[in-house]
């Protein structure tokens, strides 16, 4: 029969673990709400920008914004994996790392691949390859559009300077609190937007259509990266919430089992004691 004290210790350690996991779950739930609101808040901007860009570039001749849409021979590829800074979020980070490794070994097996990591977990995973050109984990400390725009600008500069022929971002797209979808999106060169050429309603363009498009493309790229990071951020909290919920459930189950064992052991001990007393009394009577 298991030692009573031992079981008691285990019960208390499982209970305290449970407290931690359920607190983490609650914190993530609150942060998830905020992160989701941020995604909703930026949707009007992103939608409008895309709409404007589509209707303008559909009426323009090709070759607009050429610096960002230039297709070059594929030699050097930059992958931007977006993960979280912290763990304990289930398979959230390892899914990204797995996907990047798959990209490197299958799609870009013959190219020279470098990384620009966003998130400590991605940096930890890829720094041993010595191809990490930069790590931008600190963006999570202050997740604003301006800070993300700086990273996007850096990527654009590197592409235009010819340091890389293609830039891909890999991130978790937020579907709901329990589901994240790993997405690989081509960042540069830009994928030509398909748009219906609506007659443009006799717009006055200031300064000119071409200049407007050239101004809008970098903005749309910045928005794309911002959206990716925002999605990843919301996914992280969703994933952590789910993971911590499961952990709490498991801990509850374990604690209940331990309690049962403990009570059984306690009863057995009491029965034993009674038997001994009765036995002793019997012996005296004889």
């Amino acid at each position, binding site marked *: 029969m298991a030692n009573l004290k031992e079981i008691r210790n285990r019960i208390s350690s499982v209970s305290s673990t449970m407290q931690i996991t359920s607190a983490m779950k609650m914190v993530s739930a609150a942060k998830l709400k905020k992160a989701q609101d941020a995604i909703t808040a930026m949707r*009007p901007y992103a939608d*409008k920008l895309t709409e404007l860009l589509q209707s303008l570039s559909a009426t323009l001749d090709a070759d607009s914004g050429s610096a960002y849409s230039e297709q070059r021979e594929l030699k050097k590829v930059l992958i931007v994996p977006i993960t979280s800074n912290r763990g304990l979020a289930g398979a959230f980070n390892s899914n990204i790392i797995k996907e990047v490794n798959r990209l490197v070994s299958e799609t870009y097996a013959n190219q020279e691949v470098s990384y620009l990591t966003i998130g400590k977990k991605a940096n930890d995973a890829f720094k041993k390859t010595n191809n990490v050109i930069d790590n931008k984990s600190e963006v999570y400390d202050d997740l*604003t*559009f301006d800070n993300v725009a700086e990273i996007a600008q850096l990527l654009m500069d590197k592409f235009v300077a010819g340091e890389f022929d293609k830039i891909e971002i890999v991130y978790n797209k937020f579907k709901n609190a329990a589901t994240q979808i790993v997405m690989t999106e081509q960042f540069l060169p830009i994928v030509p937007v398909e748009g219906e050429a609506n007659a443009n*309603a*006799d717009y006055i*363009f200031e300064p000119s259509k071409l*200049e407007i498009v050239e101004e809008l493309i970098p*903005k749309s790229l910045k928005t794309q990266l911002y959206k990716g990071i925002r999605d990843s951020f919301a996914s992280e909290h969703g994933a952590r919430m789910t993971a911590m919920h499961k952990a709490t459930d498991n801990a509850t189950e374990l604690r209940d089992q331990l309690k049962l064992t403990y009570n059984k052991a306690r009863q057995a001990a009491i029965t034993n004691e009674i038997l001994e007393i009765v036995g002793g009394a019997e012996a005296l009577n004889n």
Partner: protein
Amino acid sequence: MYLEIVSPEATLFSGEVTSVSVPGVNGEFQMLNNHAPVVSILKEGTVKIAGNIELNEDVQDKFSKGNAGETLLKINSGTLEMKDNKVIVLAD
């Protein structure tokens, strides 16, 4: 006319206004009701909104009041689209 100002982080304003003046790349210009459709790039400057407007409390601190009672919003850059009496300002 209807005015909507959106930034990547929030919708800053939406509602009926009487006029809006924006810092276009080629100089400041003002739009009143039934202005012709226009798409323009905005540079750093101030968007001036006239009319009886109510601001959302969450973003109120981004706006200020001008001398003539107009509402001011500072932007770094942006894009503007005006069509069918609806103005949309994408402010960064």
